[in-house]
């Protein structure tokens, strides 16, 4: 019951935000992380993370391998729980509700917080069935509505023109870049508020990478996007704010321009200028 009230609030916030055109102008929080600690068994992977992530912005998370950036991202939709030994303390508030609380259903959380993975992972089904998968499990059976959702999502991910004539073909016939945009479309189909992207272009060629980056710019009009990347140019190109992670800690979090031109911390500067990583 209380859950649906929260959702109504969400709807209202969305309506308000649609009127705000520039992302920076919005200061509504989507995620508020307070003193988050995370362990894999005995490994302390995230240490006292405090981060406020704004709505309708692109937030980039950068840092060297093993710094905990992917772990943090996967904590935001509790995908991290797939590792059996994982343990957390602290709090992550999603629009005012604590998501690490066991009473917050992960299935519910993940319909609001979609995810795009490092490697494209379409299901071994047709293109159509890939997109319709999410709406179907969430109870939409009407063929006409499904058709509309599929088209809208594929258009939203800028892949409609490439696949509209072969919706019934297996998704594995697509190129890697197309598969990744299909996976983005698949996420759009469940109409999430937030899209998490875990190094979405690391397995792609430069041309496909650019397409995805353009797409991210378009998507931030309607979605809050959090993207993990090891590619600093990419973070600089597409994000509004950037967080720099090192050894499980947030070293610095600021407007992207500031991070890349005038970082406050020596370690950030070293990383950005390529002195380690």
């Amino acid at each position, binding site marked *: 019951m209380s859950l649906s009230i929260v959702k109504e609030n969400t709807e209202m916030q969305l309506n308000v935000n649609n009127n705000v055109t520039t992302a920076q102008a919005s200061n509504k929080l989507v995620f508020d992380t307070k003193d988050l600690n995370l362990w894999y068994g005995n490994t302390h992977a995230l240490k006292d993370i405090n981060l406020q992530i704004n709505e309708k912005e692109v937030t980039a998370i950068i840092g060297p391998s093993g710094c905990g950036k992917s772990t943090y991202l996967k904590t935001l939709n509790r995908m991290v729980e797939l590792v*059996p030994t994982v343990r957390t303390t602290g709090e992550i508030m999603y629009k005012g509700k604590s998501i690490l609380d066991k009473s917050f259903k992960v299935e*519910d959380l993940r319909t609001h917080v979609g995810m795009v*993975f490092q490697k494209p992972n379409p299901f071994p089904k047709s293109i159509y069935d890939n997109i319709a*998968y999410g709406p179907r*499990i969430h109870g939409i059976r009407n063929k006409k509505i499904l058709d509309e959702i599929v088209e809208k999502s594929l258009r939203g991910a800028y892949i409609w023109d490439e696949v509209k004539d072969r919706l019934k073909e297996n998704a594995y016939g697509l190129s890697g870049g197309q598969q990744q945009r299909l996976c983005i479309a698949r996420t759009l189909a*469940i109409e999430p508020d937030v899209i998490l992207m875990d190094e979405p272009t690391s397995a792609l060629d430069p041309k496909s990478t650019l397409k995805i980056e353009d797409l991210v710019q378009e998507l931030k009009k309607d979605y809050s996007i959090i993207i993990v990347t090891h590619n600093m140019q990419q973070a600089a190109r597409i994000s509004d704010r950037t967080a720099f992670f090192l050894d499980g800690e947030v070293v610095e979090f600021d407007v992207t321009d500031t991070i890349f031109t005038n970082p406050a911390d020596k370690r950030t500067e070293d990383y950005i200028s390529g002195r380690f990583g």
Partner: protein
Amino acid sequence: MAANNNAKNNYVDVKGMIAKNKQAKSFSTVTEKIIPIILFLFAIITVFTTVGIVFTLLTETIEFFKLVPIWDFFTGTVLKPMSQNPEFGVLPLINGTIISSVIAMLVAGPIGIMAAIYLSEYASDRVRRVIKPMLEILAGIPTIVYGFFAFTFVTPLIRSIWPDVAATNILSPGIVMGIMIIPMIASLSEDAMSAVPKAMREGALGLGSTKLETTFKVVIPAALSGIIASFVLGISRAIGETMIVTIASGSSKNFTFDITQSMQTMTAYIVEVSGGEAAAGTTIYYSLYAVAMTLFVFTLIMNLLARYVSRKFREEY
């Protein structure tokens, strides 16, 4: 010169020894040539085994069909090999084989696949490490022990609930055969499901699916060929299983669909006839081979089908 030689002799003259051995190499080059030939002859024994099976079954079956028309054999519903006017219809045996296999698969299919789902999708590593070896024990128990179990425990148990069931019946060995096949289906299906990449599950879970939805809508469709292959192999195993049905289903050659009654399978017929030391050259003796040939073809088709399914429909992720 001599001093030099002496000094040298204090060390092991490796080069000299190798050179000397090279002289003896002619023997070893012969070895190098002969060994592969011997090993090839070993390897070819397996081919001879197959040829032997097919040849013996075929020649004696042909003899049988000289005595009993092939049409009568495959369409006859009466099997009375020991009677004054013997009849050799194989349908009662095929019927018994199919019914017992169907019962076995009704037990092993659902339970095996559910166990596979649990082990592959739900169980923690620790639980899996305990349960899998225990299922292997179940698979390693000799079938004769299952036969004893069916005859002395399961049949009386069924009869205490359902008194119409005969002392020897097809139901009890069918069920026990199913239990015997569970580990095979569970393990092969679990292999197929575990082979589905983790990324695929993450994709489904990331869209808000429950584990159940992920399993049925993504994992099982992706692993379907392996799961079907495990079922087909299970059927093949049930068709060829001998001791459980021989002990617990008796030797009535009824052509019936009443599972409370005794029926004979092809395998049980072979045991009965060969154990009776049928004299070579008699019709009964040849019928042994005709039934064995039928059984062999049945299982061969199943095994080829299983291989075809898992090759042809292997998903490429």
